[in-house]
């Protein structure tokens, strides 16, 4: 009897792991445990604080200015994200549809892709001063080329034969763009948005570190000068959590909705 029971229990665990949400949760727990073990054996609170002391730090900072700085950083992320998406998509679609334009600006695009983020940031701060406009501009400029490249490829892959169908039924140019070209670009837009978000928030932090007096990047610089690793980790974890939430609750559902026909 006992063996049967054991098998049932084992089967129950296996069953549980079949749920992908549980699997993801288990993986996060494992990562935290590994971190805990390393910090325990290292036994150096300054170098690698334990998950518990970071959790305490999160609790402490939440009562302080944590969410203020996060909201500042997030608004910078969104502002530059939308600017880069709109401008980058427009350029990408134009280059994808017009070969001559593509020939002229392809070199610029490669140049833009290869300029280090740090260079644009510093130049923007020197030219436009240490202000909000320069900060957002720097991030946007960094992101535009990648969006452009993705959308250019997407536009080149647009099926001309489907556009002919629109022409047969006398759709206006605008309607053809909206109803025939855009739906074919959705997968590319989602992919640009996803890689964009991941890149932009990292650049925003550097911008804040170099030239702003608020935001997560600014705080991390402050903790760096005080050698406060627990606080650095606390800010990072909470901020990453926000970005992941955006991915899960905004980009993923949007993707499923836009590409459910695949």
């Amino acid at each position, binding site marked *: 009897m006992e063996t049967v029971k054991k098998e049932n229990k084992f089967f129950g665990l296996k069953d549980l792991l079949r749920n992908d949400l549980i699997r993801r949760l288990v993986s996060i727990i494992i990562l935290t445990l590994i971190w805990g073990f390393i910090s325990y054996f290292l036994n150096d609170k300054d170098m690698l604080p334990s998950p518990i002391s970071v959790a305490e730090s999160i609790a402490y900072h939440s009562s302080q200015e944590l969410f203020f700085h996060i909201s500042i950083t997030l608004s910078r992320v969104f502002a530059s994200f939308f600017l880069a998406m709109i401008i980058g998509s427009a350029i990408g679609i134009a280059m994808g549809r017009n070969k001559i334009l593509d020939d002229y600006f392809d070199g610029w695009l490669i140049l833009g892709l290869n300029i280090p983020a740090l260079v644009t940031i510093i130049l923007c701060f020197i030219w436009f001063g240490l202000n909000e406009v320069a900060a957002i501009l720097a991030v946007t400029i960094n992101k535009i080329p990648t969006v452009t490249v993705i959308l250019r490829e997407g536009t080149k892959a647009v099926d001309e034969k*489907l556009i*002919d169908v629109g022409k047969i039924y006398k759709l206006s140019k605008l309607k053809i763009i909206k109803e025939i070209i855009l*739906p074919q670009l959705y997968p590319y837009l989602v992919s640009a948005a996803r890689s964009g978000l991941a890149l932009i928030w990292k650049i925003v932090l550097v911008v804040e570190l170099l030239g702003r007096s608020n935001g997560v990047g600014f705080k991390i610089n402050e903790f760096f000068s005080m050698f406060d690793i627990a606080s650095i980790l606390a800010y990072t974890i909470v901020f990453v959590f926000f970005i992941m939430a955006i991915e899960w609750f905004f980009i993923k559902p949007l993707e499923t909705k836009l590409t459910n026909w695949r």
Partner: protein
Amino acid sequence: MTGFNINIRDKMFPLKVGNNEKKNVIFKNFDLKIPTGELLCIFGPSGCGKTTLLNIVAGLDNKFNGFITYNKKISEEKISYLFQAPRLFPWLTAQENIEFPIKKEKNCKKISNNLLEKIGLKKFANSFPNKLSGGMQRRIALARAFSTNPEVLLLDEPFISLDNKIADQLRKLLISLWKQKKPIIIFVTHDLNEAIQLSDRILFLSNLPAKILLDYKIHIKRPRKINSAAVSSLKRLLSASVRS
């Protein structure tokens, strides 16, 4: 004459031979009149400009000298086109695809439901094209072509690369949809059986520059069976006269 008048003075096609561009003449003084309600088949070897002709009539290709005139009753908006491939929008469901050209109209739902019933795909109204078979996709494309209630319908070898049985069903479906309002149909094919089975009139085109070799009216009653005596003797007669 009421109907449709096609007059192409010349239509060239740029052709690259090595480094120098050559111009290939596709049509020269091509003249064709189609009366209302006629189902015309255009039969000819591949590459003889059949698709080009349809594209000119449809307004997709404007680079030609000549004119297409419509009888007063036919407006340009009333042209529909069924392509070689179904060309359905993969992000729209079967029903949405059929409704695509008529979205603005009030009784759009009624028309699409009606057509779905006729093509026997009512159950698949909400399926995406990728989930449907090739034959089903063509049926939806056929329904879309008829949804605008066209006065001229252009078909470019629409039943190619399907197995005979399905192609036969689709031909029957085409005839039954056509019989309701009898639009002008220009049907391009290189299958003589298909042409004889469907059309009121067959036009045989030559190699480039395309000329009309033979203009033949068929009087056999529909439905026509491929292996019936009338059809097969006509087939023998036509292929013999075209060869000479």
